[in-house]
């Protein structure tokens, strides 16, 4: 009988990675709505990066006052109108995309490694004391809805974008810990992990080279699906004044300020509000596409 030489399907060399990518992007592009999401996300990111070039009145993004052109309803010069200080709402909205995106990237960038490492360590040692300590600690953070915990932490710190980010991180990492924990504690019983243990591989090698790669697709899925949520929480924080401070524009703050002048100056509040929805919706559609592409069920 021939010796079974099947290796773990690991994308080692470049062409294999490329094939993998092609397969995933094919799966992703089968759904038209995911493509709409992707396109929308690209537009948002482009707008945010090139805001000073795209915004019609880039100087309005800061402390700018022009009472002569205050409170103009949407017209050809000011598509979203102007606010009570005469600043172009469209320009400010475009600049506000930056803060919202930065928030999402920052939070997910900080939270993923922390949560994943905690989850891996706890899951690999599941049943031990380390597992109990780590996972009970994460339960404490999950005992509150994330918005409340983020509000409490953000309120304690000085209100800046960075601190708002930290506040969301505090309430967010346990979800990654939980996800990875669940995966790791079941993967650790697989034969290839036992084989590695028998050969005498170090814990470090097993956790990062055997267990982690098999968790990655779920983690990536969660990251893609979370962007919209983080933007939502960030908008809520800035809505109550715990995010980016004026005069830098933030979507939530713009809605909150605009709400004070309802119904006369409806455009100051409604357009940023709709942009929040557009942003979250696009990232959710994109995230759904990533999930469908990475899910193994219908390979």
């Amino acid at each position, binding site marked *: 009988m021939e010796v079974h030489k099947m290796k773990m399907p690991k994308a080692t060399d470049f062409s294999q990675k490329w094939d993998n990518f092609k397969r995933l992007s094919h799966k992703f592009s089968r759904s038209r709505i995911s493509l709409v999401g992707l396109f929308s996300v690209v537009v948002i990111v482009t707008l945010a990066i090139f805001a000073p070039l795209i915004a019609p009145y880039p100087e309005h993004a800061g402390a700018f006052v022009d009472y002569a052109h205050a409170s103009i309803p949407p017209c050809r010069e000011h598509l979203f109108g102007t606010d009570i200080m005469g600043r172009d709402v469209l320009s400010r909205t475009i600049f506000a995309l930056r803060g919202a995106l930065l928030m999402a990237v920052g939070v997910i960038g900080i939270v993923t490694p922390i949560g994943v490492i905690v989850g891996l360590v706890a899951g690999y040692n599941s049943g031990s004391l380390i597992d109990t300590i780590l*996972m*009970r*600690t994460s*339960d*404490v*953070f999950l*005992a*509150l*809805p994330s*918005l*409340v915990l983020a*509000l*409490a*932490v953000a*309120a*304690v710190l*000085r209100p800046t974008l960075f601190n708002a980010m930290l506040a969301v991180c505090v309430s967010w990492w346990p979800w990654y810990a939980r996800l990875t924990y669940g995966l790791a504690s079941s993967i650790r019983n697989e034969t290839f992990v036992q084989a590695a243990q028998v050969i005498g591989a170090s814990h470090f090698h097993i956790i990062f080279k055997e267990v982690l790669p098999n968790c990655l697709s779920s983690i990536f899925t969660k990251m893609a699906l979370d962007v*919209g949520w983080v933007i*939502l929480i960030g*908008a*809520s924080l800035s*809505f*109550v*004044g715990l995010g980016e401070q004026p005069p830098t524009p933030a979507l*939530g703050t713009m*809605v909150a300020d*605009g*709400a004070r002048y*309802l*119904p006369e100056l*409806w455009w100051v*509040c*409604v357009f940023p*509000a709709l942009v*929040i*929805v557009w942003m*979250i*919706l696009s990232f*959710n*559609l994109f995230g759904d596409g990533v999930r469908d592409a990475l899910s193994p069920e219908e390979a």
Partner: protein
Amino acid sequence: MNMVFFILRRLALAILVLFGLSILIFIIARVIPGDPARMALGPRAPEYAIENLRKQMYLDKPIYEQYYIWVKNFLTKGDLGISLLTRRPVQEDIKEFFPATLELVIVSGIFMAVTGILLGVVSARYRESWVDSFTRVLAYFGIATPSFVWLVLFILLFGYVWPILPTVGRLSRGIMPPPHITGMFTIDSILTGNWRTFWDALLHLIMPAIALAMGGLSQAARITRSSMADHMDKDYVTLLRAFGVPNRSIFMKYLLKFSLIPTISILPLDIAALFANGFIAETVVNYPGLSRYGMSAILNKDLNAIVGVIIVLGAIYTLVTILIDIIVAYLDPRVRLIRRAA
């Protein structure tokens, strides 16, 4: 027996988690820069008054001793300390503001559950109909729209453009609150037979309640639909059909119970999260509830009030999670013991 053990174990863990939460919040609340006593009394207060207040609040003691005193007072007397903002015991404040929020959450939760499940069931029953398309679109937008955005849009539409609903507070000016029985205006006014007050209180609830419900509602509709659609293609349904069981009773008797399990395991958490989303909605419409109280406590760094509100919310949230586990176990014996008791 196993079930009792399961519940007891969950409760014990919940108490541990709440203890952890209180420590966490205690630390967070105490690292606030600035002197809370000074903030409470204002910049021109005399030094001795501030010294007194600091003593009264045990701020002169190290943090672990402060925590010990706080826990002891809470466990023995149910005492959560004095709010710096209202100058009253926090537990009194919470007692006063909680019913308003509870009322809002109940109305919102009922709306969320009924509409969400109904939309899901109808769109699964009539797949590819207009209800189904509507639910699909709603599911995308409902989840992507923060509740404060819904609220602002509702206020604009139904408060100003087509003014049919009040935009602030719990009652219109000139209408007396009903006598205090439960603290929930709608229930109190029904109990005392005061229909005008009931109607007015209900009108004030509609906008914030629906705005809060939108997210959970769309999620519930989507989950119910997909779960029901899955079950409809199962063999046991085909078998029932073959036996000539009428469609109606297949639907009501068999399909509904099983396909609602995923919805039921999500809905109560969404409802408990309403207490949190209320933080922002209540501020927008100036609704005098616990969340607005908590929000102003957070913004004014009112230590005892922050800790009190957060512990209450944490307790509710934790209890709801346990409740879900019990309900789901009751509905679906398969999960009863497999489910990790965590």
